[in-house]
């Protein structure tokens, strides 16, 4: 390592000029690989539990929880298109206002949704269920379905213990949406039981989503080569990709936000991108997201967290809200970026080249007013440099997770539903 820092790496190609990385550039490159193991989530005691992951996978692909029976998590996060939907804006029961992000490597994130209104992967999974434009369902009907379905019930109760007696419709009225008077009229202990079961199911979904890893790209091989001084591995990136990498870690300043092994700082920035609807920005983004996460009962510091006094909880309680967060959105990971078009929080750009063109000129950048200090400067790169950058970004593509994670399963076994369940 020390040796690397003391010399410049010269990487030659037969017919092209060598790419020379300075020690500083090499040091930065090494920060981007390898991707560490999936971090533990102390707020979710089941995040590493294979049985919970099986239940979660079944729930993920099940459209039966939505109001019209046609929307599942996989509707917007389709496994065949890198767990996204290839649409500018997400469409559940209705078309929403933001783009569906990919779920690949999602367990590494610090905040969830573009605005970070969830602080854990499991609490993220709860939101779409009750959103009128997505599932338009209710947590009480969600838990009732788990209760009434033998397979779900068995899977759930073997993990979390008995479900509440959902067949008692006096205590657990039908269609008692969480914003309805019927819900408010329920006993607090009963509401708590439903909330807890709902949270447990979501923790199972999170256990499944934690398995969606995709981290072995040509870039990672190249970095291994850099560490080991292995020319064969260094050849994993072409000359153009290496030039793009050099721009990425230096002149183009991409790593200001796209830092670390996931090529994201997991935080929020307003880059003044033109809106998808053409007018002035109206989406407060992080400004509203952090207000939401602080008051949500399903946050890391809430009663359904398995670590309500831990660091994650303390940090959620201590986030700062200010004008600088208005209109800011989470830095997306660049891993597998080639697969996750269109780009940006409203899917404003169809192609990677369009994104780079925006940063290159800042054309049509939206400044809120003449009081705003502008930090971002146009990159002003040449066409060849832009092509190199795009080539490098495409070198971040990794094999997808195994096929066993790509479809519905039996919640008790994690095997395809058609396969018979083995007896005890």
């Amino acid at each position, binding site marked *: *390592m020390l040796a690397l*820092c003391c010399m410049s790496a010269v990487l030659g190609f037969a017919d092209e000029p060598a790419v020379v990385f300075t020690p*500083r550039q090499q*040091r*930065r490159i*090494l*920060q981007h690989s390898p991707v*560490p193991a999936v971090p533990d989530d102390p707020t979710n005691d089941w995040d590493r539990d294979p049985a919970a992951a099986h239940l979660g996978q079944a729930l993920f692909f099940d459209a039966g929880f939505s109001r019209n029976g046609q929307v599942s998590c996989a509707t917007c996060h389709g496994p065949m298109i890198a767990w996204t939907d290839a649409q500018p804006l997400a469409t559940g029961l209705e078309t929403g206002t933001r783009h569906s992000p990919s779920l690949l490597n999602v367990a590494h994130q610090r905040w969830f949704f573009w605005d970070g209104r969830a602080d854990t992967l499991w609490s993220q999974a709860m939101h779409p269920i009750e959103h009128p434009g997505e599932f338009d369902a209710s947590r009480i009907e969600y838990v009732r379905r788990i209760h009434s379905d033998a397979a779900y019930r068995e899977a759930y109760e073997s993990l979390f213990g008995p479900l509440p007696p959902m067949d008692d419709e006096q205590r657990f009225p039908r269609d008692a949406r969480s914003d309805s008077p019927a819900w408010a009229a329920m006993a607090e202990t009963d509401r708590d039981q439903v909330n807890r079961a709902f949270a447990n199911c979501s923790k199972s979904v999170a256990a499944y989503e934690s398995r969606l890893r995709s981290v072995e790209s040509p870039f990672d091989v190249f970095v291994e080569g850099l560490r080991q001084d292995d020319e064969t591995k260094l050849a994993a990136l072409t000359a153009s990709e290496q030039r793009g990498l050099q721009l990425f870690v230096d002149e183009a300043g991409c*790593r*200001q*936000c796209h*830092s*670390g092994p996931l090529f994201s*700082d*997991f*935080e*929020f920035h307003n880059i003044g991108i033109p809106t998808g609807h053409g007018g002035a920005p109206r989406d407060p983004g992080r400004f509203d997201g952090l207000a939401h996460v602080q008051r949500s009962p399903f946050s890391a510091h809430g009663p359904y967290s398995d670590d309500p006094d831990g*660091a994650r909880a*303390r*940090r959620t309680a*201590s*986030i*700062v809200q200010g004008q*600088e967060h208005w209109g800011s959105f989470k830095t997306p990971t660049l891993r597998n970026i080639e697969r996750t078009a269109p780009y940006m929080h409203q899917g404003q750009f169809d192609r990677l080249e369009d994104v780079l063109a925006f940063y290159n000129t800042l054309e049509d950048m939206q400044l809120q007013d003449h009081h705003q*200090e502008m*930090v971002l400067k146009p990159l002003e790169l040449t066409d060849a440099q832009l092509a190199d950058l795009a080539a490098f970004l495409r070198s971040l593509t990794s094999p997808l997770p195994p096929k066993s994670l790509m479809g519905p399963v039996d919640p008790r076994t994690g095997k395809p539903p058609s396969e018979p369940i083995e007896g005890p």
Partner: protein
Amino acid sequence: MIREQNTMNMHLPAIAISLALVLGGCSSTLDHQLQSNDRAYEVSWSSDPAPIPVNEFFTMDVEVRRDGTLLASGDLVVDAAMPHHNHGMNHIPHIERTGTGRWHVQDMLFHMPGDWELYFDIKQDGVVHRAQESIEVD
């Protein structure tokens, strides 16, 4: 995380102050020493991990002295900002007094590489005195 590859540059004046304090009999064993901007207080601190990494939570131990003596009263607030970017940290750090003139700070996060300013605000008798240090994380 490849912590050892990150660098942090102390400004030369801070090193000079550090030397002066050591020669003057300061007993702090913490890595960094500096004076408040009005020269009224001495602040010592160290971070874990050290050096401070990019976009990774770190903790700090801080000591505050006046005329070489650890501060028996007063409060400390620690914060940081990137003046070139017009923003600060995204969290309010959690600060706990651990003894006379000693504090432990959690939830510090420099989420972007670049030039940060670390602020130590010492409040005594209605007046806040600031000590600060420039830090580059890369």
